[in-house]
């Protein structure tokens, strides 16, 4: 791509990544969550791919590493759900504990990050899965179209 696209992307991509991560982290307080944040993050990856080409990206992020990260996200999610099995599957066992354990105040308030128990952790797990999964899809599609392009 042209220099203009590359320098604009260089400027934009960090913000897209940060916004994606913000949506994942604040998923239990504001609109968004693991999936949406992950999709935003992956759109940053797509921009990276368009601007700099798939070969550079392929060197940095190996497909099997992304695949493993995706499984890790899924395992973390199910693991958290299994964590409450002593009471019931998906039971929020972290409420009242020292990790994300605050009880949220009722009525209008600014929102307390340190609430939600397992929910923010599950958002992170989903976020990891979506980032890895969607990036992998974008990468594989780019590589496939590259290969058909070079055959022509």
């Amino acid at each position, binding site marked *: 791509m042209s220099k203009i696209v590359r320098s604009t992307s260089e400027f934009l991509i960090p913000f897209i990544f940060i916004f994606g991560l913000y949506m994942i982290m604040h998923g239990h307080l504001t609109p968004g969550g693991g999936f949406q944040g992950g999709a935003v993050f992956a759109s940053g990856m797509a921009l990276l791919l368009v601007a700099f080409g798939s070969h550079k990206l392929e060197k940095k992020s190996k497909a099997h590493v992304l695949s493993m990260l995706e*499984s890790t996200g899924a395992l973390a999610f199910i693991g958290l759900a299994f964590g409450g099995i002593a009471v019931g*599957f998906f039971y929020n066992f972290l409420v009242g504990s020292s990790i994300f354990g605050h009880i949220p105040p009722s009525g209008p308030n600014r929102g307390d990050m340190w609430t939600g128990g397992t929910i923010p952790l599950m958002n992170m797990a989903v976020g990891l899965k979506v980032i890895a999964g969607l990036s992998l899809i974008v990468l594989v599609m780019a590589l496939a179209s590259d290969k058909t392009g070079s055959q022509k």
Partner: protein
Amino acid sequence: MSSLLIHSPILIIAIPLLAAFLTPFISRVSDRARDALVIATLVFVEFLVIILAVDIYRDGPHIYALGASSPLLAMPEHYMVPVRIVLQVDAMSIFMGMISATVSLAAAIYSVSFMRNETGKDKFYTLLLLLTVGMMGLEFTGDMFNLFIFLEILSISGAALAAFRTNFADALEGGFKYMCISAVAALMILFAVGIFYAQYNLLNIAALGQAIQYTMLDKIALTLLMMAFFMKLAGVPLHMWAPDTYSVAPAGITPMIYVASQACMYALFRVCFSLYGVTLNTLTIGWIVIVIGVLSMFVGVTMAVRQSDIKRLMAYHAVSQSGYMLLGVGVGLAVLGNPQALAAYGKQAMEGGIFHIINNAMYKGLLFLTAEALFYSLGTRDLNKMGGIAANMRYTSIFFMIGALAISGIPPFNGFASKLLIYESVYQFNPMLSVIAMMISIITLASFVKVFQSAFTGPILPHFRVVKEVPGPMLGGMGILTAIIIFFSLFPGLIVDQLIHPAVEALISRGAYINAIMGGMQ
């Protein structure tokens, strides 16, 4: 033990899900460990299903509320309606669960040696376990939205598995058709769920069943749901995907996709009987189910007769056999509003239809596996190129013979038991339907005589002289299903009384289904 029993509805879904995402990691260590993990998971699931089934048949349905302070608490305190994700497992659900668990286990054992020389097996087993999760979830779920979610899991993993052998040209076509049909069906279901939610603010099936009015919107929702499920279970005229998908899917996966279609049939029955029940116009809807059933029977079998590809032939027979189930249960649905007719022959027709589900899952699964065993050994699915392999593949031909006799409804096999129940009871409802059903059974037999004659009997073709019997695990997978068929054939009365009758009662008694959730705290 008792806490394992309480948690077993969710463990049956969650453990294969956990194992599905563990397989990519284990695959990096060793293939053998991964195969062991998959088989062990499915054996454990089968074990959980059986202990849960024993408990349900003895003490009544189980419910499981996810994330609640007690899993038995369907409704949170101070709420009038269930808001959590609730699993509701009654005799009918666990009956379907047993079929799915057994066929998945047999399919996984069979796949271990069948897939030995393929690549990408970590993904294959992940998808296989996810397909199991989808079926189990669809059968156990107590709310409409999760029905949609599990249907999607089932469809996506099923489509990916059908297209798994991309080295065959037609594999992608079969997978793609399945994906299209599933996507359309899933959207229709989502739309219907939206209609329910907009009207009643409810998603739980039991709570919806209590509130449902059968308004115009409910009729639209019913139409959407029925069409979606007919698409997924391959009822004529929405069967066009079945031969393509069943014939290209890897062995082991074909029976699983077939059982997944039966899980969708279960969802159809659940919606008709437990969600709408007597509020819908049972005679009209019952006749619609019957007509689609008869059409499937007839079109399926007539298309099957002229096939020369052994798997396509069996796929058309699968469509045709689904017709028997729809016929039996459709007659039950048609007389649901008439207690006398229901007691006289409606229940018996449903018993026949539901008994046919489990019989068919077993012998159709077995036949699909034998067809693929022939393909594995001979390298062709074309019947015109086979001949005289009975001498070299003794066990496979015995398994095939048992499956073929059972599907054609020859006494004393189990297919005869369920078909006889259907003939007898449907005759009292409408004699013509019974005559058609019998005639189709005869054509089925004719078709399988043709297969047996052209593939197994006669002098062996010279280039097949070196052909060997398939490896042990493949025989093991087929053996499990054969053993079940023989057991069912020997004790059909026992099976009908102990397994089928409670399942039919659970399906008919809508009040009990609603009460299990809405009837207050346990």
